[in-house]
């Protein structure tokens, strides 16, 4: 290294000649551009911007120049070093980016691979459909009421105006329970039955509460039908009971309309046809517009509907105004209060809401049937 020049002699320093610095700068930039990996760049960096690099050495020679010349050379060297380190940084960034990209490409996976290590479970669609119906009515202010499945026949029959000799008592296909001591239950004996409908819950609700009573009663019920594609001895019902001052059949109709719209969407409606049940008077059978064809299949052989057999209506269940005798049996004054009730089977509803073709699928607990229904319906 040259000694400091304090005499202001015009000394020539080889390393600070403009063409030398420019060449060093060009060499460095070319080497940087040529570096094709981060390792190569590291070597280039040592060679061209390290302590022993030509530009670093040149920088140290600046003091050897006379004071006047220092500024110019200093500027040239400084600019050259700046350009080199900027190029190094840019190249470094570029190479890192390229490396990262390559690594990420190498790390790519097949995202379509299945990954059901713990398969999701599901609630049974009958359960979730009942939940949904409960929610419709609790939103309106109803309570959800429940009662025992094994029931005293007074609750299942007598209180519902189904006396010991009522024909409905035989047509309901009841499961009777043997008395604990054995022996048979005679027609006059009070006994226990597996409830044939959730109506005994209505009775219990009326006995437990002061009117107004607005309850919805979901639950399992039992009738002596063999299991086949359309029958099951154990099935689910939702019944509804409203007892208040001044309730009418129009209120019943409105409540049914509201329910089918909530379950099946706007534009749905119900139809009432006269029918007979001991516990309601007047009584009606309730139909709803066919969910699938919306009536378009009626008289239209080109568009037959399997869901409603091209009748345009689907039978939902029974309903009516609570028979005043039922109110009386529960200690509710029929002169002051009136009420309406309806009930329908959940299996049927599930069958046509979700196109279930065979009752057995809802009964046998096959996970392949239930799993797709998930948590809600």
């Amino acid at each position: 290294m040259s000694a400091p020049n304090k005499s202001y002699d015009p000394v020539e320093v080889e390393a600070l000649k403009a063409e030398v610095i420019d060449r060093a700068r060009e060499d460095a930039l070319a080497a940087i551009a040529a570096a094709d990996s981060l390792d190569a760049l590291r070597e280039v960096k040592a060679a061209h911007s390290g302590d022993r690099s030509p530009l670093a050495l040149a920088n140290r020679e600046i003091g050897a120049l006379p004071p006047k010349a220092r500024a110019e050379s200093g500027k040239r060297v400084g600019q050259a070093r700046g350009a080199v380190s900027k190029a190094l940084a840019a190249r470094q960034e570029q190479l890192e980016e390229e490396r990262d990209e390559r690594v990420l490409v190498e790390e790519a996976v097949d995202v379509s691979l299945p990954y059901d290590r713990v398969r999701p479970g599901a609630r049974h669609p009958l359960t979730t459909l009942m939940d949904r119906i409960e929610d419709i009515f609790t939103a309106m202010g109803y309570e959800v009421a429940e009662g025992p499945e094994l029931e005293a026949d007074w609750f299942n029959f007598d209180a519902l105006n189904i006396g010991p000799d009522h024909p409905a008592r035989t047509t309901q296909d009841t499961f009777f329970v043997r008395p604990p001591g054995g022996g048979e239950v005679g027609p006059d004996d009070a006994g226990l039955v597996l409830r044939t409908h959730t109506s005994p819950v209505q009775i219990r609700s009326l006995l437990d509460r002061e009117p107004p009573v607005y309850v919805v009663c979901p639950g399992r019920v039992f009738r002596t039908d063999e299991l086949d594609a359309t029958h099951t001895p154990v099935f689910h019902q939702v019944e509804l009971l409203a007892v208040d001052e001044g309730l009418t059949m129009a209120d019943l109709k409105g409540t049914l309309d509201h329910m089918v719209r909530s379950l099946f969407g706007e534009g749905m409606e119900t139809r009432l046809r006269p029918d007979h049940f001991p516990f309601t008077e007047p009584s009606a059978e309730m139909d709803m517009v066919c969910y699938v064809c919306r009536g378009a299949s009626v008289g239209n052989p080109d568009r037959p509907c399997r869901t409603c057999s091209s009748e345009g209506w689907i039978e939902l269940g029974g309903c009516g105004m609570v028979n005043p005798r039922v109110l009386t049996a529960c200690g509710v004054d029929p002169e002051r209060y009136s009420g309406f009730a309806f009930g329908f089977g959940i299996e049927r509803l599930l069958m046509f809401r979700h196109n279930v073709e065979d009752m057995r699928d809802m009964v046998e607990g096959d996970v392949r049937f239930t799993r797709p229904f998930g948590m809600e319906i």
Partner: protein
Amino acid sequence: MRAPLSWLREYVELPAEVTGRDVAAALTAAGLEVETVERTGGGLTGPLVVGHVLAIEELTEFKKPIRYCQVDVGDANGTGEPQNIICGARNFSVGDKVVVILPGGELPGGFTISSRKTYGKVSEGMICSASELGTSDDHDGIIVLPPEYEPGTDAVELLELVDEILDISVNPDRGYCLSLRGLARETAIAFDLPLRDPALLDVPVPNGDGYPVEVADRAACDRFVARTVTGVRPDADSPVWLRRRLEKAGMRSISPAVDITNYVMLELGQPLHAYDRARLEGPVGVRRAQAGEKLTTLDGVRRTLHPEDLVITDGRGPIGLAGVMGGAETEIIAADAAAEGAGATTDIVIEAAHFAPRDIARTARRHKLSSEASRRFERGVDPEAAAAAAQRAVDLLVLLCGGTADPGVTHVSSVATPRTVLMPATHPGRVAGVDYDRETVVRRLQSIGCDVYGSDELTVTVPTWRSDLQAPNDLAEEVIRLEGYAHLPSTLPRPPAGRGLTETQRLRRRTGRALAGAGYVEAPSYPFISARSLTDLGIPEGDPRLRTMTLANPLSDQEPELRTTLLPGLLATLRRNDRRGSHDLALFESGTVFLPTGEEPAPVRPGVAARPSDEELARLDASLPHQPRHVAVALAGDRAAAGWWGAGRPADWADAVQAARLVAAQVSTELEIVSAQHAPFHPGRCAALYVTVEGERVLAGHAGELHPRVVKALSLPERSCAMELDLDLVESAGAGPLRAPRVSAFPVATQDLALVVDRSVPAAAVERVLRDATGELLESLELFDVYTGEQIEAGRKSLAYTLRLRAADRTLTAEEVTAARGAAVTAAAEELGAALRGA
């Protein structure tokens, strides 16, 4: 009830263009469910006429005998000359009247008739059988008509071949609609046309000369009409129209006398019985049966009578089950059934009686014998139609069988006052939510046969055939249905503000969601089980689960018991899924079990005229067994599936126990888990699950791996696991609303700790001791390793824990952390004999 439209038209002059479908729609809207409308004779076109067989030539040169017949068809063929017809049937002779279809006619099914050469002759038409005419499936050969019809008469009309038949499902309250009379009444109302009531007949005044009848039980039999017809021709045949109508209504023709009683029953709804007078001994009586009496009914069954059965008697004893079925001894004997000692019946006693619905229903049920008669009496028969029905039968026996009406008319009758119902004229409107004016209400009630008086308060006398109309709401229904349910408006009531689901209901949903979220699939099963399924579970004698309720009438004799545990059903579902090829299974069920103590008192039967007393209600509830809700899971195969990612993890006892913890967490409570031996579980892999209810420790269920013997007995996958918990009990142990944890922002101090304890010491006990000793500084504790092996002395195990210590208000000092750890080690050593591993 099957109603031919042609028959209905006899009483209601329906316009010709009204079809069976129109009537069906109108009746359905009025509350009669028309199930089908069946068309008969569709595709049949004439000429179809009565023919008189003049001559038969037997052709024998063919494989089967063939007849070449000359048949007089009157002027129907335009010439008056006999038709030559080839026929393969043989059940007719020269002189018979038959049904002939002439060339140009068409049979149902599109079979066109023409003159054609067959069997070497020209056949000009065809002699028809019932099946060819589409009226019956009877292939017994061609129809032979009674002799009185003129050749050439149009047989389409004669046989009422073209018709529509409405099949109507009649509700139990509308007994009057089990007759053409009742259905015609509803049809007339629906079409606003007058009704020709077939029961409006002139009947003779009762006299003392009729067949003697003694009614001992007037409450059960308030009407008994007996009429006698003598000189009935035993060889008489039922005319075609009568046979055809019975056929269409779904009944078979038997003999003229029986056909007539059936016909009148269909027409008027009054069941009749015909007795052979020659076989009656002494007066006919109506009384209760005596214990031990026997009767052979018309169906040939010898029945032992019950003292409550109402019977018809003669001098010998019971000759019929009143209102249900007659006896064989006094049965009418048709000419073809007459034998030596019992000649064909010539003198007939007709019974038209009215019995109490309840008695008939009970007898029918007791003897499992539901007949056309009992079905009607159970549902209510018009007592005032008895005399008319008897008269109608007498008329028909005279007309069709050449009999003579005996002038004697027996009519035993209790005076019945017609039923009246008081009802405000506004009542139907109040029930419907529609303003009906008084005039509408009165008109509708009158149309169904009521007499109505009064202005605001109506006094309504109901017709004798409507025993179902007893209260104002019954009348309201009549008004509303006739005004049309379709016209009811749609309004919404305003219930008081509700509170949504109860805590119990929420818990049930939460439990289902939690288990489903953990991979369990809900699989509800029937509550019916066999006693065998409980022994297969290895449940020992004396276990309360063996104390079941039993169904009196199970669907399957194999499964008459009601479940005391969810496991038999759930494990059967597990097996079913496994057999169907789903092997990695996690199922759950939430449902009722039935747990009788055996001490439940018999239920009572309070009246229904008022609310039962509190005592009666308490006794009713006491008669029911405990019916708690249980939740159960069953597991088999892999809990975490094997796949491209590697091996799976088999479901094991720990998953079952974890499922129980998950359920308990839904009420923010923790289970105490203690190893136990309990069927159906593996004795070394079974956890008893305890909850604390009001300070008391209560057993709430079990979980674990199933006993290998149970797995084998039930053909379950190896190592199947299960859990069952009393959800009601778990709920009652609920801790109430959760108290939120305090979250400290100070640094955590982590301490690892390996304790060596005897193998018999449960991890739960170690954890409890560590928690107690470290107190409130312990934020969490995790068991990260369990080790047994050569580095540990035999009979001991090492449990390695990470303790996370943190204070709410400061950074813990090293001394505090060391002290806490030391306290934990000391407590474990003192209480459980634990040694610090490596110490």
